[in-house]
């Protein structure tokens, strides 16, 4: 009998260990089942209804799949993609989304993106969107293995002819937003708000994309700091701390909550988030509750500020819907061709949900003065202001752009280092 108890207690320990190994996996199920019932019924009702009322064209169903690196409701990167999928379902007749979220080896041990894409295809998907840079190898391997399926790899460059990683696959396309603008606006709002002159940047992992986005935030901050406030650029501190992945994976990445706390505790009063989730905002709210004057700028998702309006300066966000709708329409019509699309904002209205791929929503915590200046900054950008212009040096002091030289797309996309004036690692050592 003693042995049985021993066995049972060891089992219990094991169960706890297993549970501890997959912490991010658990929060979703409680919320997940409540929402979906509405969704499956919608397409089911459609076909039954359609034949009776309208006889002429019944839209044929076109299933597209999406692999989301994080939870579909992360209030960040993955949710922006998920809602873009809902947008497509609404705008493109017959389009139906299926998806798998938390596609990363920590949440789904033993799986690969290619394999999960195959699962979506077996459920009818004709086009699969891989939503993370982390799935680059998987997206390309899958595109090679399944020439009959259209693969859209968001944030990748495998379809960029002039790029460094061109793969020349007839069924692989890329899309990314020119979020540099959004980050510049975020940096501007941060610089106009900070009282200590110290801005923290909560960085994800280090690669070309994250370096250029952090650098863009710095450029925006420095511009508004010097041009609008008339202050000395040397007085502006801008520090990047990387956590090692797009979101927190306990035991693997640095803890973004801790990193944000460290910023706020060491006189950095604005934290700009570069990660998929909203820890910076949540922590700012916590510090505000303790009477500290701090702010945060979240990222990725249009409604991210809602989690803590009182500390939110605004959010640069992606609006993937229109591009995805375009690809899926083309796929239905049979006219889709691989392309690498780096899509900017619609400068007439950067928050137009049908035309602007990136946007910026100002937050409630932005002061009236700062708000007016942010508007001015946006209109300057719209009029052609380019901050990727020399003289600019890399972090180590080597020249990046000569006086008056404007960076090309290649130079910006593959930014090899942070810029002079920024603190933080450029490449992991």
């Amino acid at each position, binding site marked *: 009998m003693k042995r049985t108890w021993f066995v049972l207690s060891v089992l219990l320990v094991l169960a706890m260990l*297993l549970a501890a190994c997959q912490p991010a996996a658990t929060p979703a199920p409680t919320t997940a089942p409540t929402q979906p019932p509405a969704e499956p019924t919608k397409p089911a009702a459609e076909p039954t209804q359609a034949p009776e009322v309208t006889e002429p064209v019944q839209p044929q169903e076109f299933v597209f799949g999406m692999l989301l690196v994080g939870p579909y409701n992360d209030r960040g990167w993955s949710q922006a993609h998920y809602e873009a999928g809902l947008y497509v379902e609404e705008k493109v007749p017959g389009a139906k989304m299926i998806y798998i979220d938390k596609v990363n*080896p920590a949440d*789904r041990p033993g799986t*690969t993106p290619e394999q999960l894409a195959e699962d979506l295809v077996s459920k009818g998907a004709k086009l699969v969107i891989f939503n993370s840079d982390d799935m680059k190898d998987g997206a390309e391997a899958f595109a090679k293995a399944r020439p009959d399926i259209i693969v859209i790899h968001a944030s990748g460059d495998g379809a960029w002819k002039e790029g460094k990683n061109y793969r020349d696959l007839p069924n692989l396309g890329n899309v990314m937003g020119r979020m540099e603008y959004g980050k510049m606006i975020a940096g501007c709002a941060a610089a106009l708000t900070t009282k200590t002159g110290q801005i923290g940047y909560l960085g994800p992992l280090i690669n070309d994309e994250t370096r250029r986005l952090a650098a863009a935030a710095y450029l925006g901050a420095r511009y508004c700091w010097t041009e609008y406030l008339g202050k000395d650029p040397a007085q502006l501190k801008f520090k990047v701390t990387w956590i090692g992945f797009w979101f927190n994976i306990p035991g693997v990445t640095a803890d973004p909550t801790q990193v944000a706390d460290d910023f706020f505790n060491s006189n950095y009063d604005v934290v700009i988030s570069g990660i998929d989730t909203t820890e910076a905002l949540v922590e700012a709210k916590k510090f505000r509750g303790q009477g500290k004057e701090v702010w945060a700028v979240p990222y990725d998702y249009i409604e991210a500020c809602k989690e803590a309006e009182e500390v939110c300066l605004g959010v640069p966000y992606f609006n993937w819907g229109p591009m995805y709708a375009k690809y899926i329409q083309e796929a239905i019509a049979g006219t889709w061709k691989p392309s690498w699309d780096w899509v900017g904002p619609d400068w007439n209205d950067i928050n137009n949900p049908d035309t602007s791929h990136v946007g910026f929503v100002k937050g409630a915590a932005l002061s009236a003065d700062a708000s007016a200046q942010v508007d001015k900054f946006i209109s300057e950008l719209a009029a052609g202001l380019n901050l990727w212009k020399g003289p600019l040096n890399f972090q180590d002091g080597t020249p990046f752009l000569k006086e008056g030289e404007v960076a090309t797309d290649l130079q910006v996309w593959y930014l090899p280092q942070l810029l002079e004036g920024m603190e933080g690692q450029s490449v*992991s050592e």
Partner: protein
Amino acid sequence: MVKTSSRWTNLAFQLLAIILALGFTSLVMVLAKADPLEAYRNIVMGSVGSLNKFSDVLVAWVPLLLATSGLLVTYTAGLWNIGVEGQITLGAIFTTWALRVLQDSALSPALIILIGFISGALGGMLWASVVAFLKIYGGVNEIFGGLGMNFVATALTIWLIFGPWKRPGIGSMSGTEPFKEALWLPTFPGLRISPWSVVVGIVGIVVIYLLLQGTYFGLKLKAVGRNRRAAFLLGIPTTQYMWMAFLLCGLFAGLAGAVQVLGVYHRLIPSISSGYGFLGMLVAMLINYQPTWAAPVALFFAALNIGSIQLPIVMKLDSTLSGVLQGALVLSVLLMDGVRQRLMQRR
């Protein structure tokens, strides 16, 4: 414990255990407002519904079976080798290491892959030997030693991925640079499973079966497991046998890690063990440490893992439900075993 129970009562108790586990899992689903039958149907279709799916099940089956095979040896010796996870990880690290060193050499890819396997086995054995050393000479219980070594293995992986083995210009936990395709275990056309890894898995469990059921070594190992002191007094060199058990388990775990690198991920990632070590412990407990049923039960567990991927796609349920079912199964089988023994004793 009287050994008079007939096969039929045994079977009845096991059946009852399965019903209990299914009932519990169904209850969880009902509480989450999901249809259990629909969920089970999806799991089945998602695991054996097509050749493609079944080949994915095999991809998970091989490392799980290898881990289970190794664990059967340590269990037989009465050892709780919880460090198996770290041993898988070290196998993967050593395999990656060997491939990184040799990938640009003139050696043929087949030879490099073979060296990769051998290195993986050595890596697993190295990590197991630390636990064995602590246990045998330091008096550190292998559960604690193993647990500690698991953490060290994870830290080592992350350090390598962010540090010396990082991809050029990148600091990300997503893994090392993938190896060129020539160094991937060749697969069946259009599928993800390699015949070679299946062969490694099957040979592994057959070897363990023969070793434990058909040799003196196996018999003596059992004696060590049942009563170490008595075995020692009867002239069995128990220290040596414990060493052998740890090293064998490390070897198999290392092979599992090698398969993960060579046949599944083609690079090193932070969670390279995929939890197959812990899952292997559950399999071993479920089969009462007898190798006969290792292959089918591991296959069943692998099928649950792969099939449950359908749940989020089709029903918006979390795939960790398969883990609930696996855990419930093991618990209820042990529970029923206890109930049966108690009833037998009363009689």
